[in-house]
């Protein structure tokens, strides 16, 4: 449990129709120094993305209104640099190859340990921060 990973300017968007996911992830990543916003509905989430792009997006794959693959496409349209992590349900990994073609940063399958997601996000953060420094 490190208190700061130097990511204080990075913004994270969480979209999952199960409120507990957003709630848990907000708690976890706020402590790591990220600015976190959570949505249970992907439509307003994309509106928020358009207003002020996020650096990292964690989205559920199966949702009403818009699925995770569409979210991936919209996010990449708005901010090609954004890292998108897709949460898949139990045994839904078959969509992986298509998602990788479309530039997904990583997948994580439910059920997962919070630690596993944390590792993925830290990896995404360091990539983003490195890219910024190089600019």
């Amino acid at each position, binding site marked *: *449990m*490190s*208190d700061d990973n130097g990511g204080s300017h990075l913004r994270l968007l969480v979209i999952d*129709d*199960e*409120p*507990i*996911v957003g*709630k*848990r992830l907000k*708690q976890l990543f706020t*402590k790591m120094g990220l600015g976190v916003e959570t949505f*249970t*509905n992907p439509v307003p989430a994309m509106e928020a993305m358009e207003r002020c792009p996020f650096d990292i997006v964690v989205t559920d794959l199966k949702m009403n209104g818009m699925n995770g693959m569409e979210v991936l496409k919209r996010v990449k349209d708005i901010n090609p640099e954004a890292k998108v992590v897709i*949460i898949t*349900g*139990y*045994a839904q990994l078959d969509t992986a190859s298509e998602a990788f073609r479309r530039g997904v940063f990583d997948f994580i399958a*439910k*059920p*997962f*340990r*919070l*630690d596993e*997601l944390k590792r993925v996000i830290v990896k995404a953060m360091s990539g983003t921060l490195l890219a910024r420094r190089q600019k």
Partner: protein
Amino acid sequence: MVGGIRLPGDVFLLEIIKGIKKIFAGGKAGGDVLAHPPAAVMFERFKDVLDCNNRALEIIADLGEKLSGDYIFDNQYIYDSMKALEDAVLQSVHALNTLCGNRYQELYGIYDRLTAHLHIVMAGREDRDGPMVIDLADISQAHSVMVGGKNAHLAQIQKDLQLKVPEGFVITTKAYHDLMDHNDLRKDLDAFESAMDDLNVDAEAIESLRERLERGVAAARPSSAFMLELEEKLNAMKALLGPEVMLAIRSSAQEEDMDFSFAGQFHTVLNVPPDSAAVFQAYLAVAASLFGKKAVRYRLRVFPGEGHMSIAAGCYRMIDSKTSGIVYTVDPADPAGDAMLVVSSWGQGQAVVEGRTSVDTFYLKKAAPHTIVEQKIQAKDTGLYLKKGGGLEARDVPEGLTGKPSLTHEQLGRLAAKALQLENYYRRPQDVEWAIDGKGDIYILQSRPLVISDAAAQQVSLAKALKNYELIVADMGSVAQQGIGAGPVYIVDTSQDLEGFPDGGVLVSRRDSSHFIRVMHKASAIVTEVGTPVSHMATLCREFQVPCLVNVEGILSMVENGMEITIDAEDRQIYKGRVPELLAFKTAVNLNVAAAKEFRILKRLLDTVSSLKLVDPLMDNFVPEACETYHDVLRFVHEKAVGELVEMGRDDRRLLKDYRALPLELPIPAGILVIDIGGGIKPDVQDDKVHLAAIASMPFRALLDGMLTPGIWRTGAANIGFGDFITSIVNVPADAVCGQYSGHNIAIISRDYLNLSLRFGYHFNIIDAYCSDIARDNHIYFRFLGGATDITKRSRRARLIAMILEASGFNVGSKGDIVTGRSGNMPKAEIMRTLDILGRVVGFTRQLDVQMYSDEQVDRYAGAFLSGDYNIMDRG
């Protein structure tokens, strides 16, 4: 068949033999010996049972792990896992029946019943099935949904903690659903629930529906069947407590007091006369409050997307309280501190919780003797008291009490101790409502989680704070149940030690045991040197939510009794002393996790799957009908499968016909014939004898190592009066008169299995052991019976064996001169160690009965054996 055992007068022994006959006869009338499959086939079938059991237990363990709070999972996961579990349990039942000639057909019916119930749980319809009213004393885990959280807690508090709660009964959610149907409210209710199911429901849009339901329930009519039952309960209360008894009708919604407090969301009606019309009216007010505006808003906030919630009501004796109030077991303003908070006033507590009166406030040290840190005594001119005929009224407090503290030191101490018991039991800080009556008795009216905001708990940077504490153990052991716990160390060696287990203690033991269940409601954590996260104990830990680390090497040498430690069974750390920051932090975090819908369904499913009621095979209730959960079924199947193997070695004639038995060459005259059913003997052995070095069976090697321990095997046996009978075992033919056991000493072995029948003239040992890499598959079964001397001496030896076995971690049963010991669910190394001890026991006690001329020797010999002093036999 077992040859030549006939002891006229020894009825018990005859019973045993009859039992064995029955087993060999496959339960058929007439008792003929059925064609038994060859030993190797039996063993293969036994392993099939283990495989199925394993698959099922792994799924249960996996589901249980998800409850630990460190995972995110969804409904699909639960659904798929449950389907796989159903299949595995069914196959397990099937495998047992294949092993033992379909003797356990009734398990299929039990399986069907349990599975049907799980489907009801998964569909979230548990609240519609069961009694309309139920006595508080009759409430069990199975009723927890239909009586609501608050009542379920009161029942537990009374049953498990033996704290005083008011007498009463519960009007269940089944009655609520019947009421809705009886009053044609079902359609509105369905519409309301499905609207509430929608995550993005607009509270305004369902306002008219909500109002209609609230009004409809408030004006509902009862069914005559319900009124009859209600009257019956009220009459019983009047008969028990006198006709002047008055009642409190308190709400208890499904999730109330479980993970959320719902403080003040629902209605309570106090001081109601005990007639059915009045109680029903009060009940309607309570039930209607489920649809109250503020309660619905609260639900939308804490349970978004969950429309299904029903309400029960507790009908309790109204306590005429002299003093009442609340205890917070943690000061919410300082969750990391070591103080608890008590607020009290004269009269009824309603005034306190609603903030309607001046109160006294006490801050007490959490640690006994709960010294007062600070107190604020206010002038309390009025209090709420029971009004004649019903309801409450504000009255002047009795003369002279206004400025006096409303609690004495002695009362504060008692209250604090009870509140801490509750905190321990529910494993999180509690908000406890209590009352003290005219006799000075303390009643617990309610205990619910004290909600501490995340912000308060996370004020301090945890990582930084933790650096200030000394680590005893870092990154060691495996997590059996995640969580944080702190308290004084209490070391448990034998199950007797559990007697003195203190509230809030940390149980430290060499290995895990399902016996610990007896103190789990008191333990703040469990740490063991050996053990596995998939043992029965680990499952029980999850059920009781006891933080638990197993396989913490050397822990016994790092702690001592009474030493305060904090266990972080998540990051696998153990700290010296209390780490309040950690405890406060975890409290807040856990609350959020428990809130998820999936989490609650999974918890409920696991309640009906994984708890183990069928713990002790030595008890009379170890029968199929007593299985209440899948876990019980699996436990039963495993035990019976082992039982089937145990008896296999006794049919020596059959074995010798089926197999080539090789004599084992040993430096002691034990006369053992070896039958290898797979990998038990090294492949290059060509001889017609087996040398010790050629034994590849791990359990057999371990047992022989024990038997061959220097000093264990005495050869001088002259005292017994008929010579060295060791050598006679194989040679002397069956003697039907003197009770000597005949037949052969046969060891059926494979690489990881041993079944040994040892007949030593007048007594008989059976050892059955399986020892694989999967800890939960492993078992040791030991049976000892008989002897040549009189029953008193024989019983002394049996007692001695029982004592040694118990000290070695066996679950022991004994009757006269028969001792059975069971152990298992342990890693391979521990099984081997235990078999070594068993080998010594067999050797040590072989001729001991003739020497047991006084009771005093039993303790002395057991003590000597356990300290490695085997020469005591020569000294006498």
